[in-house]
């Protein structure tokens, strides 16, 4: 037998052995391709091959090595895959068991409403005034009432029962005093004043399902040379649609606040309003008070009401949260029951 035939025979038997093997692929590789292996042994016969045949024999020898190597590699890979699959099968777990707990804290639901309002007005170019200097929770009677056009014996003071500390110092009943404090400082050469002031306010009320001695307000105000009541309507429509949904509408009704003239109460539609809807089918709920800032208020803050006009509004985060989520007792907001707080856990709304 020539070397060529021997090589071809080795190739045939090697392929058959590799395909047939169940066990040790590495041992097979050593016995076929190793230093003392069968191919190495055969190729030792190269030295006896005639020089003109060496090239051909060499190529055949390479083909045999290549074929065996590839087949062995494939076999080994298949074997590893099988072993891995076996291992993975053994590692199977019940993926329906509970995952480990990770506590994610929530902003308070009132904070979430305030955040939403802040974000909206920041987008409209408003500043937020909530620092201790311009928005103190303990206020003077002057800023809380007198500068808001509520002199000492004004009947409308009955609308806001007050926690007094001294005859001149009180817990603020509204965030409106922030208007005066901001206006005093505003530099109109830098454009109109557009601000909101979120914060806590206090009323001398007995706590029950709908009254709380402490609640929140977000005061808003825009003062400039061309500020109109139509702008107020547009601004309020935009925030109400942000809070309640784009298809909700607002209506303004006459009202009275000493610090605005005209004054309006604003209702938002509880249902979504479509163009073909009959007016009597819209259910309105009262959500806030607003108006064009009273000239006396502007004048007391050193603003010329002939030159500047202004609107102001007061939003009630507590009321919004009650409406939005159907919370029927305002005291829930201040008990901090974990079962209550942890429900308001939707981010990205």
């Amino acid at each position, binding site marked *: 037998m020539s070397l060529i035939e021997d090589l071809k025979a080795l190739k045939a038997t090697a392929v058959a052995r590799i395909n047939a093997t169940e066990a040790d692929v590495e041992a097979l590789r050593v016995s076929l391709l190793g230093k003392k292996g069968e191919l190495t042994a055969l190729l030792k016969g190269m030295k006896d091959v005639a020089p003109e045949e060496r090239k051909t024999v060499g190529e055949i020898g390479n083909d045999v090595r290549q074929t065996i190597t590839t087949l062995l590699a494939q076999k080994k890979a298949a074997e590893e895959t099988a072993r891995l699959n076996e291992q993975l099968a053994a590692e199977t777990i019940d993926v329906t068991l509970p995952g480990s707990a990770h506590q994610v804290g929530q902003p308070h639901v009132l904070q979430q409403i305030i955040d939403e309002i802040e974000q909206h007005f920041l987008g409209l170019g408003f500043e937020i005034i909530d620092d201790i200097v311009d928005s103190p929770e303990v206020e003077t009677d002057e800023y809380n009432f007198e500068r808001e056009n509520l002199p000492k014996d004004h009947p409308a003071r009955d609308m806001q029962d007050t926690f007094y500390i001294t005859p001149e110092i009180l817990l603020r009943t509204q965030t409106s005093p922030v208007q005066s404090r901001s206006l005093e400082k505003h530099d109109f050469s830098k454009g109109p004043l557009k601000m909101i002031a979120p914060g806590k306010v206090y009323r001398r009320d007995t706590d029950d399902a709908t009254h709380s001695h402490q609640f929140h307000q977000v005061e808003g105000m825009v003062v400039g040379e061309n500020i109109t009541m139509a702008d107020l309507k547009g601004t309020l429509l935009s925030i109400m649609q942000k809070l309640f949904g784009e298809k909700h509408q607002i209506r303004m009704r006459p009202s009275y606040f000493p610090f605005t*003239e*005209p004054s309006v109460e604003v209702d938002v539609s509880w249902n979504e309003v479509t163009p073909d809807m009959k007016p009597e089918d819209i259910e309105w709920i009262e959500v806030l008070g607003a108006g064009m800032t009273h000239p006396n208020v502007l004048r007391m803050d050193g603003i010329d009401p002939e030159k500047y006009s202004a609107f102001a509004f007061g939003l009630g985060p507590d009321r919004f949260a009650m409406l939005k989520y159907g919370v029927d007792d305002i005291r829930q907001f201040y008990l901090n029951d974990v079962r209550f707080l942890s429900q308001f856990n939707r981010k990205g709304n």
Partner: protein
Amino acid sequence: MKTSLKWLNEYLEESVAVDEQSAADLAERIERTSVEVDSVTTLAGKQDGLVVAQVKTVAPHPDSDHMVITQVDIGQDELIQVVTGAPNVAEGQYVILAQVGSHIIDHNTDDIIEIKQATLRGETSFGMLVALQEIGFDNKIAPKDFDAGIYVFGEEDNVHAGDDAIAILGMNEPVIDTDLTPNRSDMLSMLGTAYEFGAMLGIKVVIPDFDLVEYEPLAADQIQISVESDELASKYAVRVINNITVKDSPLWLQKRLWNAGMRPINNVVDITNYMMLVYGQPLHAFDLDKLTTKQLAVRRAKNNEQLTTLDGQTRQLRAGEDIVIATNDAQPLMLAGVMGGMSSEVDRSTKNIVIESAVFNPSLVRATARRHNIHSEASSRFERGVNSDHTFTALDHAASLVDTLATGQVARGLLTAVNQPREAIQQAITVNRVNHILGTTLTLADVTTILDRLAFEYTIVDSKINVVLPARRPDMSIEADLIEEIARLYGYDNLPVTLPYGPTTPGSLTKAQRQIRASRKILESLGMNQAISYALTTPEKAQQFAENPAAKVVTLDYPMSSDRTTVRQNLLAGLLEDVAYNVNHSVRDIALYEQGRVFVANGKNELPTEIEHLAGVLTGNIVESSWQQEKAERVVDFYDIKGIVVAYLEQIGVKNVRYVATDRHANMHPGRTADIYTDDVYLGFVGQIHPKMTRAKKMTPVYGFELNLFTVMSAAKETVSYQPVTRFPQVSRDVALLINDTITNEQVMTVIHQAAGSKLADVTLFDVYAGDKLPTGKKSLAYQLTYQNNEGTLVEAEVNDDFEVVTKALVAELGADIR
């Protein structure tokens, strides 16, 4: 104010429709144009089947002492037998019968019930004779007490058997109850309401007409009046009426009163109330013969005066403050403009009366009413301002009605003590200005049409409209008031919708606002829920964890309740209340934080200092997994809350933070609390709440921290300083020490850092052991020291040298036994 539309029509040139749907539609328009509407109702509600019946016979009930058997005529062929227990039933009376099949309101439950044929002690009754309280009248408006028995029509009421009692009693008249804002005192009268509805609907107002006949003797011969000072009243007048007969008012007047929510009393009192409802001008009638002298004065109360008001209460008057009407020799007769007094009350035997009409100083009336906690129909009108044009008209009209209804003779002469004329107020406005404020494009014609509807007088000069502001609108005095009138009558629904335009302004947060918002977000990311507690608390809790227990608290002058008297100086006490609430409701695993203000009092009339704080509490278990042993729930401890503080301060950018053991906080565990400093700046504390506070409330150990957010914010470093991540490998060495258990981790760390040399990158404590395998008083601490050279690969020998310096220092300085 309750407004019967049928009555209102008397003052409108064209009537408004009074059916149910029209009334509801009108109410909707009122809400959009004028004021809030509380309700649109009729006294009848869903009641029906009530007829006027004449009692023909009354026979004793054979089997009952208190019931009788009546036969009543309801205009049909046959009489109807009705058994009644009414004590006042008598033959010939006209009464109200609730027929079989009629529906009436059960006056105990307010449910609608159907009247059925009934057998009462063996006698059949076909219906029920009723009192007004049994057909939906509140006791406050029914003219007679329920105990007095069934309602009996007066002889002059001219009713007939079979008449619809609901219509006769005015119970079917729709009544719109408006909820008036304090400025709209004009709408506390039928005429003011007529002007308002008229403006809304484009209908002109008709002023009521009356004839006044005067008789001798002169009023001036019977009484003298004076006003102590012009400050008390700007108008004060009286009329005297002689020889009157006090009795029930006719039905037409009673109907108007009860539909307006007022109780008919007698003709004289009813006339004064009626005039108040028509004109908005409160009047008061005195019994002239009960006055001890015939000199009436408006004055301030004197020392030691008292007065029994018509509500039966005897009141001590505030000298120099309360405003009263008095004769010149005795105790005051009434609180002027607020409430009458018993001593001069008009009753059924009264023969001669004095009626006063005045414009009292609104502030003084308000102060008097508040001091005595009386909010009467009169005071609510005087406080807000009455129409001074009608002050004397209402008085004359009242006198004329007393003539008609009480057959009296009006004594000649209107006596006036003071009559200050009201200065006419003119306010100019331009169409441009209106459009400038409203954002509208109204024309001159649009504006004048609205002014015409309001029945305001005006003249036009060039572009200016000069409007005369009428006395009936005391709420109006400036241009903005006119703009409001135009806006609301034009309709807020018709206003355009725009956003402010003009120079752009940036909407951005300040540094402090970003820091406060970030503080909240960091704590939330660390698993804590935000709490918002009450700032008002008890004096004790206000100071419980206060930064400076000697700082003065802010205290309410007149608190509502003893648990809300003082403004807080710390947040932890509030959070502890929250924990207690949760524990009481079986919620045991709690992680809460709060960001809010605390308050430190300054001088008496100075504002307190407000400081933003940040605090958190942790209690119960940390639950990682409820079913995996190796991750089972475990009880939170000091290091959990400290870890939160550490992570927070790290994230907000506070460096060089030190935790110093402290026992100085009275309400914190003395062995488990640390004061927190950055360099030498005190930030707050962290630790276990003192068990004396938590055990009493059955709480598991509670851990908490409270930080002065302002100090934290100013200690926070502005920027991140970036270090390139090194590509050279780290080398680490472990060291375990046996040391006295009084030595703290911080002491060890200090020694390591001081001795370590420049290549030490990090030190980690990885084991703490103190137990019975160690000698008493000893503990074992193990640290891993990580070395790093940012410029090149570390040389083994260098690390070994540096590490040996550290171990030697630990031995030398802390007496450590290196294990």
